[in-house]
């Protein structure tokens, strides 16, 4: 009998142990077993609402502004019906003598309580009225390249740069663009230009994938060695035609392809003249500018032949037209705001390139700087891609606008194409930053 009593005692002890264990081992609610990540939903909701800086604008508006109502509607529409929110805005105080870092500005909610569990995310927004110091990403930091050559040759003359000199335009472009490139080199004379055309760097920079800006307008500097009677005459001079120096433009196209350069023509008809004040000292361009030889309309044709690796064929056919007033494309207008470069949104184009060159020379328009007018493109970045290939082999940024040039358009075209990021580096100005906290909770169910 004693054994049975002992066993009953054991059973009682185990039962008690089970009951105690069951009391403490409380099963969680299903919602806690498999929770929604409310913190992430809150963060992504704030990011969505700030997609076009709408949130940044609204939180700086007066408390009685109707935009707050719109924000509440957008929040309610954005979140699933079973999720309630509390949206709070704080001003970030950073002045001396401030006792608290955050001051409550406004709070809105669509429920009295956020349920049994909630989570929150915060998001710092900046006023659109403030200009912050920014650090630009350098072109070439990723993907190679990153050299900017600006033609600043002292022994060449420009055309259609009336009111400026090529050298003053080069200085302006240097100031505008050098922060965005790994290396910026001013090509000081035609001999240096010859050096890079021959594939030798000037200061140990990367030659491949470089950008070459011709600041000489419709004219382009030509190194002496490419002129008639010099050692590379065959690459710069084609005898027995009206404009023999079109051959030099063909060489430029070839070099652009071989080194995958982006050749930039800042104004007018690209490559209409070649210029070297030493070689052509007694020859002028029919308008009184000495040191030049005309290549006429065949210059750009020859350049495109070289770019497309076609055999050189002398061709004077005109490939531009005069569409008149043209407008910045929406993409360019967007990047005006992004980079803070504001040229006039409408310009006059008298040398817009024809779309017929696209198929014939295997060019793709990667960026429309101006809206296309009928079959003519007033300003764009053309990428050369051989048929059945995917790799870009040379690019041309051609701005077929009338004189005088606005180099901000050149800068805008290059930046819109390469899209270097701007990193904001300062958010500490007083009254210019607000902290938004979105707290979410779930209602309904268990």
């Amino acid at each position, binding site marked *: 009998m004693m054994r049975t009593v002992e066993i009953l005692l054991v059973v009682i002890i185990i039962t008690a142990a089970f009951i105690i264990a069951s009391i403490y081992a409380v099963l969680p609610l299903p919602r806690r*077993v498999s929770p929604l990540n409310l913190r992430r939903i809150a963060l992504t909701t704030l990011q969505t609402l700030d997609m076009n800086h709408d949130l940044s604008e609204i939180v700086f508006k007066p408390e009685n502004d109707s935009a707050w109502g719109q924000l509440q509607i957008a929040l309610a529409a954005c979140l699933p019906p079973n999720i309630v929110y509390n949206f709070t805005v704080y001003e970030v105080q950073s002045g001396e003598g401030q006792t608290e870092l955050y001051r409550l500005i406004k709070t809105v909610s669509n429920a009295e309580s956020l349920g049994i569990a909630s989570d929150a995310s915060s998001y710092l927004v900046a006023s659109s009225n403030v200009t912050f110091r920014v650090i630009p990403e350098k072109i070439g930091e990723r993907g190679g390249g990153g050299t900017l050559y600006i033609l600043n040759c002292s022994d060449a003359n420009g055309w259609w740069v009336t009111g400026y000199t090529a050298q003053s335009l080069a200085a302006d472009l240097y100031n505008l663009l050098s922060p965005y490139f790994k290396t910026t080199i001013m090509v000081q004379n035609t001999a240096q230009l010859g050096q890079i055309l021959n594939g030798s760097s000037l200061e140990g920079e990367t030659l491949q994938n470089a950008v070459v800006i011709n600041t000489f307008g419709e004219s382009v500097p030509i190194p002496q060695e490419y002129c008639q009677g010099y050692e590379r005459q065959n690459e710069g001079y084609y005898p027995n035609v009206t404009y023999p120096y079109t051959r030099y433009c063909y060489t430029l196209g070839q070099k652009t392809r071989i080194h995958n350069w982006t050749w930039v023509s800042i104004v007018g008809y690209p490559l209409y003249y070649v210029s070297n004040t030493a070689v052509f000292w007694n020859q002028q361009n029919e308008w009184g500018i000495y040191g030049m030889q005309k290549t006429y309309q065949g210059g750009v044709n020859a350049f495109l032949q070289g770019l497309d690796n076609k055999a050189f064929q002398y061709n004077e056919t005109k490939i531009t037209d005069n569409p008149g007033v043209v407008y910045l494309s929406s993409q360019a207008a967007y990047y005006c705001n992004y980079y803070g470069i504001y040229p006039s949104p409408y310009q006059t184009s008298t040398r817009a390139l024809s779309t017929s060159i696209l198929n014939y020379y295997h060019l793709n328009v990667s960026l429309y700087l101006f809206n296309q007018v009928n079959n003519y493109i007033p300003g764009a970045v053309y990428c050369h891609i051989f048929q059945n290939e995917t790799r870009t082999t040379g690019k041309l940024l051609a701005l077929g606008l009338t004189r005088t040039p606005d180099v901000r358009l050149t800068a805008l075209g290059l930046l819109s194409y390469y899209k270097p990021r701007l990193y904001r580096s300062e958010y500490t100005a007083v009254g210019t930053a607000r902290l938004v906290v979105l707290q979410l909770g779930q209602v309904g169910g268990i």
Partner: protein
Amino acid sequence: MAGSTIDHLISVIVFLGALLLFISLFNQTLQTAILYQRHRNLAAKCSDLLDNMLLNPGYPVEWEGNHPIEWAKLNCTPTVFGLQDPEFTQYRLSPFSLMRLNYSEGEPVYYSKTGQWYSNITIGFGKFLLVPMSKALNYSTAARLLGINGTYGFRLTITPIVTVSISEEQPNPLILSVKVMGAGFPLAHASLSYCFITVDPTGGEQAYPSYRTNYDTTLVDDEGSALLSFSDFDGTSESYVLIVYAHLGGLMGVGYHEHVNYKENYVVPFISDFETGLVLLAHSWDVHQGANPAEITYNATFVMLTEDFELREIPLGVGKIGKLNYGQDPQHAYKNVTISTHNPGILVVTYRKSAQECGVVLMPWGINSLAFPVVFGDSPFSKEWVATDIRQVIVNDIAYQATLALWSYEGYQVVG
């Protein structure tokens, strides 16, 4: 002696019985606790996996200058799965990566002229998105790239947050009703910018069909509704498309409505090549058959949305106008057009059989252009325990919600 033996026997039997009973009871508690941990683990995995998909652009990514080009635009199968737009940080997705996911809910379409099957996201007549299976990323490849093949199953659903529904209130003169809804509530007082496209059967080059566009803006009321009137337009006899952009407080959505007066023969666009933007324009009879097959002519245009909600035309070049015939007419079986940009837009193809019988079909180039949804992966129905998580994402300015449903194949069961 006998009493002692009986005492022992009874005590041993009671002890063993009690032991078995309590082992079973404790086991149940332990099993529930283990399940709890596993379910929590699954929820955490679901959240991590969703971020994995949405916060990396995948691989390969090529560079053109400082401009990254994601795998979806390169015609290749990715070696790392990711959907982020490489031009941005955070939850911004590439409209082209989403376009290359094999749509789970659509019935695949076979086109005999190319001998290929196509993944099918077709949202009613005239809104096609047909991607060759050979170029669409399938579920098993994605699962393998994510490292969950055989251990977890998933379904990724990406749906627009803002739904813009359009219905015809009155055909002549045409009055259309627009209703704008968010995920939870109406988008009251949202701004609407709309583009009304009408088909001109003989207005194009060489008397091919063409279209005309009219733009306007309005606001919706407290309930998210608005009526759009088009006086002098007869909706019974003429073909048209209305594309509406709704925006409020950072949210933006797209809706569209289409009416065509001739549906017996039309154009079906098939994407052929993502890298070059090659699209095949096929005759509908060769795809779906149907009654009264006939030759049709078409005029294709590619349009992009500008910042002021107007459509900017991008030239298509060779093949933009042409003739399509059904059956055995190899010369007119299908035509090729090339979309020369990787900026999202809409391919608008007007077609006609006669001066009175015409219509228009649309194809988004980039999933966001017409706010098409994406459903990718296995079905979660009848799975034992499914964890879900949500993120708000942006696909080229259109607000979407990404939902991942995840379940485990490890073989445990829910008890109780």
